[in-house]
């Protein structure tokens, strides 16, 4: 079909040659220079997992402080730094990178591609994420962590109310991190548009890929609002502009608008890929495809769009005209419909399938229960009158943990168990996994369900202490106990993964019987993923005998090459050569780090030096290869 040459090389020889071309040396240089999407994906998962652990410890400290009224474990300033870092890190340094890690490791495999469209950009994105995370967490150990809440409302975060470096870490750190997220998003979009296996037209793309692509488009449109807001705040704080200062004509509500234009889509940026994970896991354990595939696609797309039109529901109590609030209320309420479509599509999949109960499915069931409970309280917050009463109370804390922990962390853990064979070639212990599920599920609800009650009882958010005798004490104590149970459960998850990697049994090929292409590759996949580029004939290529048999017999695509296909119907177009490993992505990220540090410490010559270094590295990185003689003559 697409391979051009007709040399009669035996398949085994061709595969061995491929192996030679794609194999990475076990050396220090290759460790820093790798562009393999699977390695980068694993690094994203491990790094984001570490940040999850740190932000989780923050949360445990917060809960310990709040175990009883008038607690004195933390000082007010420590508490404020910790709750800010907990939120900021969980959103920016854990959730999105974790899901990007799954995307990195799996999207090319699911598409039947050999790597991401821009492998070096991919490596660059990882390094930037790592450095941004290190900057932000080191500020916590130096006692200058951001302390204005993850939402960083002005004027509290502007001069003269916030004088230290705390908020500079926040603004610069998030802009720096934004570079990584944007690069990742563009990479996912282009990979999914151009590198799908032949035959994988839009109506045959895996739901996980749909979710990642929808998410990536959201990133492109939402992140600029956050970056702009942070840049303007940085200018206000450092160079004396007045964007958020009412005395000089600025406006404080501007920050809230800009922040939430990013912030609400970001909730879905986190949840959508996690919902994609659920749709990817279910078929393997229900022995049938996800029900109502076109409706689930419809739901994914409409959620991505409508999520941009609900941001003002975070501002229902700011005193804006009720009418203008109601347009956002309407969208906030009706965005439930696409979420409902997905929930009932999963329920239908389980009802009409043959269920095999294994650990990943347990986490999916736990997810559905939790997510539905978070969803119904979400509808309540879409109603302006109710929101004005309950917002900024502990009820909100309960609600968004049901949505974000329930909606993202449960699928992430489920996905971890499900794809562990792809990621590491090992299987995790089923027994340990079930214990972990029980503790995580029980601990989660014990932690967060009581918060609904303390919220209804009038307990406000973000308080480092509270008086006794207001009926809040028992619920807070329960929450704290729950948080420790939850922590034990999460430790068990980590333990079972570590044990699996260290001494777990080698996974069989396709151990769960999954339906997407990552299971049609070897377990774990080779560096080139597929020797022959897969042919797709339906929604479930790994269950399709045509696809599987052709994978064994089709001609091997030789060399460091990938196949481009058409945007809508994935018709083969042409071969392109893929870049080799390179240190330049790391160098570029380091140069950018210098810029950020220079700005942070107000050492501007350092920042300028960093800019020059970045330009030098990028110019070298993108320098076009010299034309071959034949090409030069043809010109």
């Amino acid at each position, binding site marked *: 079909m697409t391979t051009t040459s007709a040399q009669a090389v035996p398949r085994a020889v061709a595969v061995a040659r491929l192996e030679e071309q794609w194999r990475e040396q076990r050396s220090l240089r290759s460790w820093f220079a790798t562009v393999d999407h699977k390695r980068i994906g694993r690094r994203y998962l491990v790094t984001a997992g570490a940040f999850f652990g740190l932000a989780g410890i923050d949360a445990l400290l917060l809960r310990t402080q709040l175990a009883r009224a008038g607690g004195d474990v933390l000082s*007010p*300033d420590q508490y404020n730094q910790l709750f800010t870092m907990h939120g900021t890190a969980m959103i920016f340094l854990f959730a999105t990178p974790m899901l990007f890690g799954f995307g990195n490791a799996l999207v090319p495999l699911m598409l039947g591609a050999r790597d991401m469209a821009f492998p070096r950009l991919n490596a660059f994105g990882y390094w930037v994420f790592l450095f941004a995370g290190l900057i932000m967490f080191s500020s916590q150990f130096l006692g200058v962590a951001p302390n*204005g809440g993850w939402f960083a409302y002005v004027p*509290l975060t502007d001069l003269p*109310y916030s004088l230290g470096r705390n908020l500079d870490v926040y603004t610069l750190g998030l802009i720096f991190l934004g570079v990584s997220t944007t690069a990742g998003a563009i990479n996912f979009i282009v990979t999914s548009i151009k590198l799908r296996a032949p035959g994988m037209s839009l109506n045959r793309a895996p739901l996980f890929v749909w979710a990642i692509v929808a998410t990536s488009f959201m990133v492109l449109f939402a992140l600029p609002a956050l970056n702009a807001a942070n840049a303007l705040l940085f200018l206000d704080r450092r160079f004396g502009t007045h964007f958020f200062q*009412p005395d000089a004509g*600025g*406006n*404080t*509500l501007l920050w809230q608008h800009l922040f939430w234009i990013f912030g609400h889509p970001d909730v879905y940026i986190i949840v959508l890929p996690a919902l994609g994970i659920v749709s990817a896991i279910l078929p393997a354990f229900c*022995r049938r495809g996800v*029900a*109502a595939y*076109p*409706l689930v696609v419809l739901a994914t797309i409409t959620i991505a769009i409508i999520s941009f039109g609900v941001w003002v529901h975070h501002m229902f*109590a700011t*005193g804006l005209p009720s009418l203008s609030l*109601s347009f956002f*209320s309407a969208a906030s309420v*009706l965005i*439930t*419909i696409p979420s409902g*479509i997905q929930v*009932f599509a999963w*329920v239908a*999949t*389980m*009802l*009409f399938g*043959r*269920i095999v*109960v294994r650990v990943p499915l347990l986490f999916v*069931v736990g997810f*559905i229960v939790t997510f*539905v*409970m978070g969803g119904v*309280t979400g*509808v*309540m917050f879409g*109603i*302006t*009158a*109710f929101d*004005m*009463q*309950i*917002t*900024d109370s502990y009820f909100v804390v309960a609600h968004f943990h049901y949505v974000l922990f329930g909606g993202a962390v449960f699928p992430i853990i489920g996905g971890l168990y499900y794809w562990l064979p792809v990621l590491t070639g090992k299987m995790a212990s089923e027994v340990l996994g079930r214990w972990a599920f029980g503790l995580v599920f029980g601990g989660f609800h014990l932690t967060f369900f*009581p918060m609904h*009650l303390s919220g*209804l*009882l*009038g307990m*406000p*958010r973000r*308080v*480092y*202490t509270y008086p006794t*005798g207001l*009926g809040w004490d028992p619920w807070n104590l329960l929450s704290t106990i729950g948080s420790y149970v939850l922590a034990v459960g999460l430790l068990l998850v980590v333990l079972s993964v570590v044990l699996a990697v260290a001494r777990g049994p080698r996974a069989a090929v396709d151990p769960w019987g999954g339906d997407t292409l990552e299971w049609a590759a070897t377990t774990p996949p080779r560096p080139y993923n597929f020797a022959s580029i897969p042919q797709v004939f339906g929604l479930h290529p790994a269950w399709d005998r045509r696809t599987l048999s052709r994978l064994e017999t089709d001609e091997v695509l030789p060399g460091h090459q990938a196949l481009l296909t058409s945007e809508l119907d994935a018709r083969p177009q042409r071969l392109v050569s893929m870049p080799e490993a390179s240190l330049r992505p790391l160098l570029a990220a380091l140069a950018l780090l210098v810029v950020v540090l220079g700005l942070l410490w107000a050492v501007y010559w350092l920042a300028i030096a960093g800019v020059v270094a970045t330009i030098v590295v990028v110019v070298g990185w993108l320098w076009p290869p010299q034309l071959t003689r034949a090409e030069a003559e043809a010109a």
Partner: protein
Amino acid sequence: MAAVLVALCLAGCAGSAPSTLDTAGTGARRVEGLWWFMFWISVVAVLEVLLLLGWALWRRRRDTRVRAGDAMPFVGVLGVGLPFIVLVAVYGVGLRDLNALIRPPAGPELSIEVIGHRWWWEVRYPDTAGAITANEIRIPVNQTIRIRLTTADVQHSFWVPQLMPKTDLIAGRVNETWLHAERIGTFRGVCAEYCGLQHANMSLIVTVQPEEEFTAWLRDLAAPPARDLTEQQRRGQAVFEAAACGACHTVRGTTATGTIGPDLTTIGSRWSLGAGAAPNDKGHLGGWIVNPQSLKPGNQMPPQPVPASDLPDLLSYLETLR
């Protein structure tokens, strides 16, 4: 589910809590009704999903067929049709309640200005000749009170859960809300928007009184009656003036006219110190004056070098300010 109901009942019956389910104001009562409406719908929705999930998990023991097809009718009815009807109903009820919230009951109206500070509430009665207090609001029962909300520094939010949904205090803007209390009592309020270091200790008390009682109180607040001071109290006043407390605080009728800190004209009768940070008794007040940073770390009041020998006099003077 039963546990949920028991817990909610407990929540509703906990008398001392500033509970949104134990309301005394017209606005909050509206939202309480809205909550129960949405709560029961939510219970049904969650039960529906739980039952279907349970059925799916239970069924697998007997029935191992896989049904092909895309189940579009199932998803269409349960995932689109039913939710659509319910959501439209909820949105409609919500719109009705919002409309009620923005139209306070008519009647004689009183205006109060509430100004947010880091981290206390300044309360002014503009219809009187300078009635000012802090961290407490008194209002007459069964009347509509207009509240004008501004902030002196950062964003705050005015929330008295039992009376009215919250409204933010936005720098550079003037916001308005209203209270209409239907019964007599005291109701706790808080700052609900994170406002920095001592956001946790920024509470206030709304006392709802019969109209005559309220009128008498307001008259005394506006024009504090002359006080007969004992010898000790007079010495205390001298300490107060010597320690330059008046640079930040006002005690109307004296030389203290500062406006940075709360007006202390009625400090003796306030419900707490530091907007809920500590009870208002002699011991805490003395501790507060000598080192306010230990009771409410980070607040704007610096420690006062009042000699230990003068402290009892000062405290006995401050107690007279009622």
